[in-house]
């Protein structure tokens, strides 16, 4: 691995990422508007650590994941993986890096090929990882299945023969087969039952310790995020609104949107059922452009200047950044890479 980045401990650094999708209408498919999925997203993931990316549906979380995997190309911004900007790489240059970054999906059934046995699914990755002899491949397959807590005998069976939790284990084994350094977990436990959820969360934590993995943990469940993540980035309509160490964020949330999210979590000390409504009915769509802060229409403390100009990150303490000037302690702070 090339360690050319400024920080050797940083595995992934994202700087001012932007991605718009065109809306096409009519016979000639003319562009009539833009979905502003990712507007301005910056964060870093340290080696062996977990960053939680939280936000409501439609806020752009999954688009960020796809941009990091280069399943989509970013409009502007940088994605530094081990110091190398992957946004500039073409398909061929990207290929060796693909096995470094893997993803685990929410729906483990939809993401496994129903016509391939579990062994076949995982073996594809093992071959790519450079195991060429079939005895080595077999050994590796058994190790991977053992690592995720499944018996080697399951390799001859098909995905439909397994329960949701077991399928998620298979998905994890497949992601591990190419020996990645970073795994993007896109809502990995939200489709699972409570008793199974704990098994998978424990497994992810064990694997992180054993293999030194880094995780980007995408979730809307703040209880899970509070348990598993070291850092948390709160996303709203394509912007990171607040970025802080997990303890700091849960104990001293600053941004009004973070506070709204925390107050909505059932089963937390912040929660009350009589919490006053924020303005508006729910998460706003990403179609209509707004000047100023994107959260302003729903914000309980907004004022005129929030509607007028864009807001940069403000430093609110060590490693704690907030995109809201009403809560600013000191002046504007340019994020990262300066």
């Amino acid at each position, binding site marked *: 691995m090339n360690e050319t980045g400024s920080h050797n401990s940083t595995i992934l650094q994202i700087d001012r990422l932007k991605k718009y999708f065109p809306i096409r209408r009519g016979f000639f498919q003319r562009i009539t508007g833009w979905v502003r999925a990712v507007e301005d997203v910056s964060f870093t993931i340290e080696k062996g650590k977990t960053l939680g990316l939280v936000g409501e549906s439609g806020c752009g979380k999954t688009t960020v994941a796809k941009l990091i995997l280069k399943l989509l190309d970013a409009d502007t911004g940088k994605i530094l993986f081990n110091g190398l900007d992957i946004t500039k790489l073409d398909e061929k240059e990207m290929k060796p890096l693909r096995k470094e970054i893997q993803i685990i999906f929410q729906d483990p059934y939809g993401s496994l090929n129903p016509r391939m046995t579990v062994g076949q699914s995982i073996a594809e990755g093992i071959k790519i990882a450079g195991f060429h002899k079939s005895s080595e491949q077999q050994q590796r397959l058994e190790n991977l299945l053992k690592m995720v807590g499944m018996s080697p005998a399951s390799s001859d069976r098909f995905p439909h023969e397994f329960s949701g939790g077991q399928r998620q284990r298979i998905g994890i084994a497949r992601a591990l087969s190419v020996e990645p350094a970073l795994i993007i977990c896109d809502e990995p436990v939200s489709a699972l039952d409570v*008793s199974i*959820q*704990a098994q998978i969360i424990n497994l992810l934590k064990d694997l992180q310790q054993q293999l030194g993995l880094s995780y980007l943990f995408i979730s809307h469940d703040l209880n899970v995020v509070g*348990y598993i993540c070291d850092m948390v980035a709160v996303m709203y309509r394509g912007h990171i609104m607040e970025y802080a160490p997990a303890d700091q964020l849960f104990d001293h949330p600053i941004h009004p949107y973070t506070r709204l999210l925390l107050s909505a979590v059932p089963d937390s000390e912040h929660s009350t059922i*009589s*919490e006053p409504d924020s303005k508006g009915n729910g998460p706003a769509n990403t179609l209509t452009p707004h000047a100023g802060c994107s959260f302003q229409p729903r914000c309980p403390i907004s004022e005129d200047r929030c509607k007028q100009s864009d807001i940069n990150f403000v430093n609110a303490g060590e490693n704690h950044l907030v995109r809201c000037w009403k809560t600013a302690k000191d002046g504007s702070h340019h994020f990262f890479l300066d």
Partner: protein
Amino acid sequence: MNTNKNILLSVQDLKVYFQSEDEIARAVDGISFDVRREETVCLVGESGCGKTVAALSIMGLVPIPPGEIAGGRILFRDINLLDFGDDEMQKIRGNQIAMIFQEPLTSLNPVFTIGDQIGEAINIHENIPEDEVIRRCQQLLKDVGIDSPAERLSDYPHQLSGGQRQRVMIAMALACDPDLIIADEPTTALDVTVQAQILRLMNTIQKRRSMSVLYITHDLGVVSKVADRVCVMYAGIIAEQGKREHIFSEPKHPYTQALLASLPSREKRGQRLYSIPGTVPHPAYKPRGCPFHPRCPHAIQTCCEQYPAMCEYGNGHQARCPVIFEDRPEKRA
């Protein structure tokens, strides 16, 4: 019989089985619980535990066959709903007992307007003039917090957001002023902030109209916010029931204890989460004895052979685990 008067719905030893070619799935296997007036009772459990089947059988919506009510009674105001035919059930459904489903988009008809669908619910049960129906619909939409109800009435379901659709579903359920609402995972498909709004709304409406709510969910977080009493279901039986405080602060059944211990939270950071070994049994192949015994840390030989009795802890707190009951501090002292 003063206590009985307060009970709106009483499910007694209900058994619902599903017959297929070579097996019988015992989805609900002898459950008993009461819903009192103005009370919220939560049925909580993992997928496949029978909570939705229990709700559907109260509404008379279990498809027969393959389903079969194998035993028990469902008393609504002391009348057994299981004795009713389709026509009689039709009069109760929507009118006195209404249901809210999980997925508002699939439970609303995409080719009719919101107004048509809420109006239909009123027209079935009451014979009132059309303009009166429209007025009622508008009032209902206003009650559930939808802005400019007059315009929304001519909207189609796809024009609304997920939260608004769920509000419409609630408005439909409220249309005939029912005494009992059965809500099956009404907020599972929604974002947390919208979920909080819907829970708040249901709470306000319930108080205002003095309704009872039977709330079905797998989310213990939601249960801790809305329930007066909780029934914890596992593999077709009620493992434990009692007041919310009892269930959350002094759970007596090993399954309830394990469920609560396995919930992730920030306070548990750095600790390992407790995880229940194994998986939920298939409803057709449940283990003999206590259905939880293969996964239970307290299981002894009798658990594998004998169906566990319901043990009383007082104040309506019951748990189906004699092992923990025999080991309680009062007994040991």
